[in-house]
């Protein structure tokens, strides 16, 4: 699946998007954050405060316990500051 990062999360990860293939044990958004965080120090730093990170699956906001199965695109970003 495709993962996208925005704002300071994009800057910390060092890329705007990438393709990932997490293991089947990674079921929810929360699981995915934990899985990404353990990849290396860069990801660990980017995802060090998971409570302030928002997620969207296929362009719709989702909660941390949302199941990621079937998602084409998952995005992570800080709280929105538009308007």
């Amino acid at each position: 699946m495709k993962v996208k990062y925005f704002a300071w999360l994009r800057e910390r990860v060092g890329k705007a998007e990438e393709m990932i293939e997490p293991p089947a044990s990674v079921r929810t958004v929360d699981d995915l954050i934990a899985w990404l965080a353990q990849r290396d120090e860069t990801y660990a730093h980017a995802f060090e405060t998971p409570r302030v990170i928002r997620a969207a699956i296929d362009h719709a906001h989702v909660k941390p316990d949302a199941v990621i199965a079937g998602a084409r695109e998952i995005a992570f970003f800080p709280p929105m500051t538009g308007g």
Partner: protein
Amino acid sequence: MTANVTIRIQETDFDIAREISALTKGRTDIGAVVSFSGICRGDEGSETIAALTLEHYPGMAEAEIARHAETAMSRWPLTGLSVIHRIGRITPGENIVLVLTASQHRHAAFQAAEFLMDYLKANAPFWKREEGAAGTNWIDARAHDDAAAARWTKS
């Protein structure tokens, strides 16, 4: 009653008069048009700002605004609405966002415009980075913006 919905995300500035005209032209069933313009200020709290840079999530930003537009159209008797959000670098005094609502009566237009702004602030995937004296920083979200959006689910 045909509804007239415009949603645009663009780098260039918008022309409020032209957008109002597009929403009202040739119609005589509109009694009230409310516009909200969000403008880049020269300070954020105590800090002076040289410019803002707005990043967005293409695809989701349009979809999220469209969802809010549909909600507004279903909650209030609107003849139309427009949402234009700028992205890229914006300096103090420049426009950031425009929300227009048109209705037969003024309360619907006011309520829908305020609802749209509260929802955009809290939910539309845009992020502001500020250029200040001490370098650039991502602006923090404010708890009161979430609270402002939440009040529409209570009423």
